[in-house]
């Protein structure tokens, strides 16, 4: 009984080791869009863009008619 449980433990260890070395299961995408959506979700926007934009936008004068006034009310026209 003791030997049996030892074997079982060894088998379990072997099984666990095999599972670790096995390749991950294939992932399936029903369509190109689904695949692109997955890709987009795992794409990181470089943080440098925001920094550059902050500097560039800061150097610009703001529009005379505020866009946020048009969007959120209180616009001039």
């Amino acid at each position: 009984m003791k030997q049996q449980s030892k074997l079982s433990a060894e088998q379990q260890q072997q099984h666990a080791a095999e599972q670790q070395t096995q390749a991950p299961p294939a992932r399936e995408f029903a369509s190109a869009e689904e695949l692109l959506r997955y890709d987009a979700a795992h794409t990181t926007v470089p943080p440098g863009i925001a920094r550059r934009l902050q500097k560039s936008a800061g150097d610009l004068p703001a529009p005379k008619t505020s866009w946020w006034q048009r969007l959120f009310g209180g616009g001039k026209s």
Partner: protein
Amino acid sequence: MLMSEPTAEYEPLTGPSAELASAEFSSLYAENSRAIYYLALRYLSDPQKAEDATHDVFLKAFRKLDQFRGEASLRTWLYRIAINHCQNLRQSWHERHVFSNADDAVWENAMARTDSPLRVLETKELGQRIQKTLDALPEEYRLLLLLVADEELSYEEVSELVGQSPDAVRGKLHRARKLFAAIFGKTA
């Protein structure tokens, strides 16, 4: 050109108004930068150019936001600026597609063999495979798939962005999907 150049007069903005503008623009960027960067990345096929393009698109948007009429969603409006910008860049590079002049029979044969789902065993190089596939597609199909992949856009909005009827978009999308699957299968 789908977008006209900015015509608004400008004056310095300071104090609370400037802070409000900055906060709203930050929000606009946070909500849309991934979509615009992803379009630029996969459309231009160059991370550095995509980064520059995304910067330029949002800067244009910042300058033109006073011209935004609210007839389309902000996302659609940003896409329009991005598409124009990227298309201008591509035209200036005189880039050509590998299969753009391929015989129709070649396309038909390639597409006929692809009705199964897209299987991916290794996600590490998935981006490269996707890029390779998109690069091999006709430009029209590439843009169409990238836009339709954005769930925030309706077919009607995609149609407007590509300048075609919804029916034409559906037909082309069907072919684009099959062709994508055919080429993607060969990149494994």
